């Protein structure tokens, strides 16, 4: 079930390097500027509203449209992308011979080569600046706006790609904007394991990172487990705080923990279920060798956990600069 066993790294430096590579495409023009093959025209509008069952007369009846204060018939806003469609011939040609080279094609190929072969459109947000009138001739520019970190979804693990499409008229005035998001995913992540995809740790609750605890979360992001240590009396303390409860000193430094410990107690949670966690969810309270205690995730089989179990730190990326400790069963390793 662990996402770290797949051929591509789910997390860690390799995953970050791959994401950095993907993100070099951000800001690039996705595909060449596309020009409408036809001006906005009554025939296509009529076909569209008949198919949609939309009987609003402002789309078909010149008199009715004028009576609403418009200069004439307008196009239904949802037709936006249809004015810029490449057409059947170009579509089948691309399917047969591959899409013409473009930054978008290169980005999709990069993902495809890494096993993210599935594709599904997930979001389509459209913003209309003005209504389209008969005779408008549109032009569309698409820019790659974002590539998400790897997410594990119900379809499989993958990356979301967002493009911003800007539609302009003959005077280069913006008439509409469209944010179009697709998921490029690897369907085998779920199918080969026969189990539902692991929950996305990116959805988990985040720590409150504040002045008094930031050093600890900064270290954790670098996969270093540290313990706050009083610089005057030497007492270790966790969770951290601004002053030493033993001697009152505000001076402190970090001590690196070996990352080994034993389970002091544990919980296996079933209900309620929060997004980002797999249930039954086992959470550990670990006595570190250094003497402090901390709560952490458990990467092992819930059946194997017991009070006194020797464990060793591992890490889990929550995405967005958060990495937190999880512990693995030390008995299973030896």
């Amino acid at each position, binding site marked *: 079930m662990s996402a770290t066993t797949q051929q591509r790294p789910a997390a860690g430096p390799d995953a970050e390097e791959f994401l950095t590579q993907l993100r070099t495409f951000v800001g690039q023009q996705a595909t060449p500027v596309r020009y409408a093959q036809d001006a906005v025209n009554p025939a296509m509008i009529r076909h569209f509203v008949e198919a949609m069952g939309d009987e609003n007369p402002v789309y078909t009846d010149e008199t009715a449209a004028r009576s609403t204060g418009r200069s004439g018939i307008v196009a239904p806003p949802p037709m936006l992308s249809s004015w810029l469609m490449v057409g059947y011939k170009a579509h089948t040609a691309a399917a047969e011979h591959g899409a013409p080279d473009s930054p978008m094609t290169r980005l999709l190929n990069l993902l495809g080569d890494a096993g993210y072969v599935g594709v599904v459109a997930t979001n389509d947000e459209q913003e209309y600046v003005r209504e389209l009138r008969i005779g408008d001739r549109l032009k569309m520019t698409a820019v790659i706006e974002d590539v998400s970190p790897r997410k594990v979804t119900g379809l499989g693990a993958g990356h979301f790609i967002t493009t911003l499409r800007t539609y302009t008229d003959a005077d280069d005035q913006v008439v509409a904007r469209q944010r179009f998001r697709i998921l490029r995913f690897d369907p085998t992540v779920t199918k080969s394991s026969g189990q539902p995809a692991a929950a996305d740790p990116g959805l988990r609750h985040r720590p*409150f990172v504040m002045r008094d605890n930031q050093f600890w979360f900064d270290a954790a992001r670098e996969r270093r487990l540290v313990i706050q240590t009083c610089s005057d009396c030497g007492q270790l303390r966790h969770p951290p705080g601004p002053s030493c409860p033993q001697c009152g000193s505000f001076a402190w430094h970090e001590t690196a923990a070996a990352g080994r410990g034993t389970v002091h*107690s544990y*919980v*296996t949670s079933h209900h309620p279920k929060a997004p980002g966690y797999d249930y039954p969810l086992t959470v550990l309270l670990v006595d570190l060798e250094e003497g402090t205690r901390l709560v952490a995730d458990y990467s092992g089989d819930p059946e194997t956990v017991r009070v006194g179990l020797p464990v060793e730190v591992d890490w889990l990326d929550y995405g967005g600069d958060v990495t937190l400790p999880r512990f693995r069963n030390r008995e299973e390793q030896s």
Partner: protein
Amino acid sequence: MTSDFLSGKAAIAGIGATEFSKDSGRSELQLAIEAVGAALTDAGLTPADVDGLTTFTMETNPENMVARSMGIPELKFFSRIPYGGGGACAPIQQAAMAVATGVADVVVAYRAFNERSGVRFGQGPPPAKTQATSDNEYRSWVNPYGLLTPAQQTAMFARRYMHAYGATSEDYGRVAVLARKHAAKNPHAWFYGKPLTLAEHQASRWIAEPLHLFDCCQETDGGQAMVIVSAERARDLPQPAAVITAAAQGLGPDQYQMVSYYRDDLTRIPEVELCARQLWAQSGLGPGEMDAAVLYDHFTPYVLNQLEEYGFCGRGEAKDFIADGNLELDGRLPTNTHGGQIGEAYLHGTNGVAEGVRLIRGTSTNQPKGVSNVLVTAGVGVPTSALILSTAR
């Protein structure tokens, strides 16, 4: 050093509540007003007599809204106690201190909410808990790993206690079975007429192992209020006084809210022991003089801890103390005679204070014989509070 100044100075002269339901169908403010009004009627007083109000910081109905809605003309004293159910007994202590010092004459402690039909506490951090403050910082060390609810957080202690003393899920289950047995005979209880067997407890689904569903108290819509006056004035009022013989708050070493995981011994609850120490010192009484108890039962395992911290039995012996029938009506310490929060209602422990008063009056639906002193406790796992209520001497 604990002073006995407060002992016997104040009394609870009236109690009142709404019905306990899962969907009250009315505002939380209305529930508060109904409860306060019922308590005043019970005490033979009117809103015009009230000059103090105390409640929880978590209460959504502020003193001014209750006062203006009820026509309470002036308030000279108002205070609030934090830490949720840990504050169950503390507003009573606040009121007792106010009347004992002459700051106020008639103080009403109240708590009202639509906790089942409105914002539920068992669903994870409430919407307000999103600020990066030291109040919320403790969540950084538990929430990201999925310890989000009180049940999940309590289960960590329950598991360690089982490991330390060989307690079992059945031992926890007996607390729930006892509560439901008492609730089954209490017409005001949600589980009136609905006892629970140990087998049903064992078969109930896991919430957070080792806690089953029936180790967790229910959720409730309702309101509860208590009227506190001086012990002297209480003598002139219609109900038999429940004298406040002792009242204490406790916050222990290395204290967190529900997740004090960093103490050496997780089977000990030092803030509860701190309350016990103060109650015994204020009252001159000991566990042997308690004739009944209302022990806060949000989660069954914490009832075992409380029996040990108050000295009713030795460390690790609570499971046997319970199994031997000591908490039954004819036992050594009849406990949660109203059905507890598990069986009657979850009113953040305030309905338990009201049951303490009924036990002193001799009017509990499960009234044991010869009750002179009752221990009432508040939420465990957080900074807490406790009372000893007594018959007038």
